[in-house]
C-alpha cells in the first residue's frame, strides 16, 4: 500500500473510532512506522499495510486489556509471536481492537470499553458480532487493510459475516498462540479479517509458522506432510451438512446461500448433501468444554501480580480474591460459574468427560466426510467423501443493538445459538472461512476444509468473490 493512501486512512481513525468504538487502544507511533514510497530498499511483504490486533493478544508497546476491567491498562512485557511476525513483515499496527471480554460473547457488546457497532449500518446502531468485534468493524470501516482476531467458537467468522468481510479461521495449530491470552485454548485460533483475499493469503503466509514457544503449534514434520498432500484440483466435491440446514433462516440469507451454491456449480464444482450427526451436539459440547477451560484459565486474575486489584480487600467471606474478581463482567462470571460446575467432582464424569468423548466422535464423523486424510488422527480419508463443506455462517442478520439486550437477559442461552454453525469446526480444529456473498451486505457463507487443507480452502473461497 502506498504511503499516501495509508496516511489518508489513518486520518479517518479517530472519526471512525467515535462512531463505532472499534479500538481499545491506539498506537501513538503508528504514522512514524510508515515507510515513505521509494525510501525502502528492501520491500517487505506487508510494508505499509495497516492492521489492528484484537486486544487479547499481547503487545509490548500498547496495553493488552482483553476488554476487561481486570486487565485495564495492563502492559505485557513481551510481544505475541504473531505481533513479531507481522512487524518483521513490515505491517503497521494501528492499535488494539475491541472485543467481548476475554473473547466471551458473540455480539461485541460485553466489553469494559463499551460495545462496538457495525459500520455496515451507519445510521442505526447495529450488532457487529463478536467476539472479535473491533477487528471486524475497523476493517469494514476501511481504516485497516486487515486485522487479527481470535476464533474459539466462531469469533472471527460471525463478525466477518455481519460486516461482509472475509474472515478466516485456519486449522488449529498453524498460527502460534504464544501471547494470545487463553479463553479455551483447545480451540482458540488466531484468525484474519480483510476485504481482499490476496491480503488474507499473504498475511496467512507470514503467520503460518511453527513456534516452539507454543506447545500446540503444528510441528515442522507435519507441516511438511501437509504440503505434499495439498494438490489443487479444478473441480471439487462440496458437501452441505444437512444438520446445518436450519428452519427460520431469513430469506435474504437463504437466497445468499443459493447464490453461493450456483456460483460454485458454475465454476465446475459438484454439490452434495452430507450428514454429520454429531454436529447437533456441538453447542452442548462447546458450552461444556469452553467454559471449563475458561474457568481454569481465568483463575490467574487475582490482582496480586498485575492488573486490577480491589482497593480494600483480597478476600471476602473467606473466599480469596472475591473482591477483585467481582470486577469481571456478567458474561464472564456466568461462564466461570458454568465451567466450574462442569469441573466439580460430582459432574466431571457426566459433563466434561462425556463432552470430550462426543468431541472425538464428531472429529471421527468429519474424517469420514472428507476425502482428504487427517494427519492428526491418521484417518486416510474417505474416497466417497467430499473435499469441502459449505453452510451459512450465521442463522440471522445482525440485529439492531436495541434488540439484542433483552434477548440475553431473558434467556441466557439464546445468544449461544448464534454459534451453531461455527462451533463444530472449532471443536474439530478445522480450517473455516466466512466469504461475503453480496458486497456490503451481512450475508456470508462458510467454507470448511479437512484439517490442514487451508491453502486449497483459500483458493476455493477466492472463487466465490
Amino acid at each position: 500500500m502506498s504511503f499516501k493512501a495509508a496516511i489518508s486512512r489513518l486520518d479517518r481513525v479517530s472519526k471512525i473510532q467515535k462512531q463505532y468504538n472499534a479500538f481499545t487502544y491506539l498506537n501513538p507511533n503508528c504514522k512514524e512506522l510508515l515507510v515513505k514510497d521509494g525510501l525502502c530498499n528492501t520491500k517487505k511483504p506487508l510494508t505499509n499495510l495497516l492492521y489492528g490486533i484484537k486486544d487479547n493478544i499481547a503487545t509490548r508497546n500498547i496495553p493488552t486489556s482483553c476488554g476487561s476491567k481486570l486487565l485495564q491498562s495492563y502492559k505485557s512485557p513481551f510481544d505475541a509471536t504473531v505481533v513479531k511476525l507481522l512487524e518483521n513483515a513490515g505491517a503497521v499496527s494501528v492499535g488494539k481492537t475491541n472485543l467481548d471480554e476475554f473473547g466471551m460473547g458473540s455480539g461485541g457488546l460485553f466489553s469494559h470499553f463499551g460495545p462496538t457497532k457495525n459500520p455496515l449500518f451507519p445510521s442505526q446502531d447495529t450488532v457487529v458480532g463478536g467476539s472479535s468485534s473491533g477487528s471486524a468493524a475497523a476493517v469494514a470501516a476501511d481504516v485497516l487493510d486487515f486485522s487479527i482476531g481470535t476464533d474459539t467458537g466462531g469469533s472471527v467468522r460471525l463478525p466477518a459475516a455481519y460486516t461482509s468481510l472475509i474472515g478466516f479461521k485456519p486449522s488449529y495449530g498453524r498460527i502460534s498462540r504464544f501471547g494470545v491470552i487463553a479463553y479455551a485454548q483447545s480451540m482458540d485460533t488466531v484468525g484474519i479479517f480483510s476485504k481482499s483475499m490476496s491480503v488474507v493469503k499473504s498475511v496467512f503466509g507470514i503467520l503460518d509458522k511453527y513456534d516452539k514457544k507454543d506447545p500446540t503449534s503444528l510441528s515442522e514434520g507435519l507441516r511438511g506432510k501437509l504440503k505434499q498432500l495439498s494438490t489443487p484440483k479444478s473441480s471439487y466435491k462440496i458437501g452441505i451438512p444437512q444438520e446445518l440446514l436450519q428452519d427460520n433462516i431469513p430469506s435474504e440469507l437463504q437466497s445468499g446461500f443459493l447464490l453461493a451454491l450456483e456460483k460454485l456449480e458454475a465454476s465446475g464444482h459438484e454439490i452434495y448433501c452430507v450428514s454429520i450427526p454429531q454436529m447437533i451436539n456441538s453447542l452442548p459440547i462447546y458450552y461444556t468444554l469452553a467454559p471449563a477451560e475458561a474457568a481454569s484459565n481465568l483463575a490467574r486474575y487475582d490482582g496480586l501480580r498485575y492488573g486490577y486489584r480491589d482497593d480494600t480487600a483480597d478476600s471476602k467471606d473467606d473466599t480469596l480474591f472475591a473482591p477483585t474478581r467481582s470486577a469481571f463482567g456478567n458474561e464472564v462470571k456466568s461462564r466461570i460459574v458454568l465451567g466450574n460446575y462442569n469441573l466439580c467432582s460430582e459432574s466431571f464424569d457426566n459433563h466434561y468427560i462425556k463432552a470430550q468423548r462426543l468431541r472425538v466422535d464428531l472429529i471421527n464423523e468429519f474424517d469420514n466426510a472428507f476425502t482428504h486424510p487427517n494427519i492428526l488422527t491418521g484417518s486416510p480419508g474417505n474416497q466417497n467423501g467430499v473435499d469441502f463443506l459449505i453452510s451459512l455462517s450465521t442463522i440471522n442478520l445482525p440485529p439492531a443493538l436495541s434488540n439484542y439486550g433483552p434477548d440475553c437477559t431473558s434467556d441466557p442461552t439464546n445468544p449461544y445459538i448464534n454459534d451453531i454453525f461455527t462451533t463444530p469446526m472449532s471443536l474439530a480444529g478445522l480450517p473455516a472461512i466466512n466469504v461475503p456473498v453480496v458486497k456490503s451486505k451481512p450475508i456470508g457463507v462458510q467454507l470448511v476444509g479437512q484439517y490442514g487443507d487451508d491453502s486449497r480452502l483459500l483458493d476455493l473461497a477466492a472463487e466465490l468473490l
Partner: protein
Amino acid sequence: MLQLARSFGSRIAKKGFHFLPDFKLKCGLEIHTQLSTQNKLFSLSTNDPFASASLPNHHTSFFDVSLPGTQPTLNPEVVLLATKLAVALNSRINMNSRFDRKHYFYADQPMGYQITQHYSPFAKGGFLELSGSLDTIDEDFKRIELVQLQIEQDTGKSVYRGSEGRSLIDLNRSNVPLIEMVTQPNFTDLKQVRAFIKKYQNLVRHLGISTGDLETGAMRVDVNVSVNEHPRVELKNLPNTSSILSAVKYEYQRQVELIQSGETDRYSGFSETRGWTGSSTVKLRSKETTIDYRYMPDPELPSVKLSPSAVQSVAQSMPELPDAVLRGLMSEPYNLTLKDAKILAIKGNGHDQLYTQTDLLKFYLDTFNCYSELSGQRLNPKLPTNWIIHELLGNLNRLQLTLAKAAEAFPPQKFAELLMLIQDDKISKASGKLLLFHILDETNTSSLAQPVDLGALIESFDLNTIEKIDMNELKEICIGIIDEISDPKLIEGIVSGKKKNSLKFLVGQGMRMSQGRIKPYLFEQAFKDLLEVKW
C-alpha cells in the same frame, strides 16, 4: 503458655511411648521430591528454589508469574529423572502420561491451579524393599508398595510478616519440578518409617535426581496414620525425620485415646488433615471443608510419550543401586562391615562435601584392585578400608582438601603402593601416616598435581624401617628411656611381672623416639634383657 504446652506435648510424645497390641498402627507416606534439574518444569528459568533470601522472585520467567499469554513447555530433563526414579522403584512407567490442572486459590499459586498428573500419572505400582540386615528394621524383609509417581509443579512461598500485617510472595520456587510419590499404607511401626525415609533419601541422592534434604524442603514428607482401620488422618508440615516420627507417635496415642474413650464415632467417616506444632498435632481441615480441586486435563500440554526402548536405555545408563552396592562391599573380596560400607555408599546431605560418594567408592574400588594385584595371596582387605575410610577421609577433612584434588597427586595406584610398603613393613604405620599427611598437605598448599614419587619421599624423610640395628645403640636408647622414668614403682611392677602392661609404655616411648622405624618387638626384647625380666 506456649512453653507449658510444649513440655506437656513432648512428654506425651517421648516418655513411655509404646505400641499397644490391640491398636494396630497403619501408615502411608506421601513424599514430594524436588528434582535437581537445570531449569524449571515448564519454563527456562533457573531451578534454584533456595536462591538467597535477598533475591526473592529472581528466578522467575513470564510463565512462572503466570503472565497472560504465556504457555508451558515441558522440560525433558524432568522426564529423564522421573524415569530413573521409576525404574529404581520398580514402578510401571506409563508410556503416555498426561498433565492435569488442580485448581485452588492461594497467593503463592500464581495460575490459580497447579499442573500435576491426576488422571494418568507417570508411573504406577512399584516398591522399595527394606531389609533387617541393611536398614535397621525388626523384620528380615519389609516391602513397601507404592501407589504411584506423578510429576508436578511446586508452588511459590508465602512469607508472613505479622508485624506489618501482610504477607510477601516469593516465586523462586514456583514451577520447580516435583515428583510426588505415594506409598500404600504398609508401615506398621516407626522403624520402618524411619528406614524408608532414609533409604528413599539416599536413593534420590544416589541417582543424582535430588538433594533429598528435608531441612530445606527439597524433600517433604506427609504421613497418613490410622489405627485399627479407623478413618485415616493426614499429617502435614513435618520438617524433619524426628518431627515425622514424633508426630506419628503423638497421633497414634491421640487416636488410641479417642478409640478407648469411644469418641471415634464423632469423627467416623471424616478423614482429617492435621499439622505438627513441634509438640502436638492440630487440626488443619476435615473432610467437610475439603476443597474440590476441579481437576481438568490440561488443554494444551501434550502427553508425555515414551517408548520402551527409551526407558530401557535410561535403565542401562543407571548406576548400580545402593542395596546392591552395599551387599557387594559386604561380601568377598571386600568384606566390609555395614558401617564402613555405608560410609562408601550412602550419601550425606551434600553440603560442603569434599567428595561425592560415587567418587569415593570409585577411589576405594580402584585402590583395592591395584592393591589386590600387588599383594596377591597376601591380601588383607582391612588395609585399604582402614587407610581410605579412616586415614584418607580424616586428612581430607582436616585439610579441607577435595578427593578429586588429592587423587591427582595420589592416585589409587600410588595409594596401593603405600599400602604395600606398610604391609611389607618397609615403613612403619606411623611413618605411613606421616607420609600420607605430608603428601596431602603439599597437594593442598602447592597444588601439587604430579603423582608423587613415594620412594624418593621415603628416602628424603629417612622413613625407611631401620633394617640393621646396632644392638648397642638400641640398648643406649632403652637405658635413656628407663632413666627418664621418675616412678620407680613402674619399673618394679614390670620386673616382678605384676604390671606387665607397663612394658608396653616403655615400648611406646621407644617407638616415639625412633618415629616407628624400629620394630616394637625389638624394643620389647631389649627392655626385657635390660631389666632382666623373667616372665
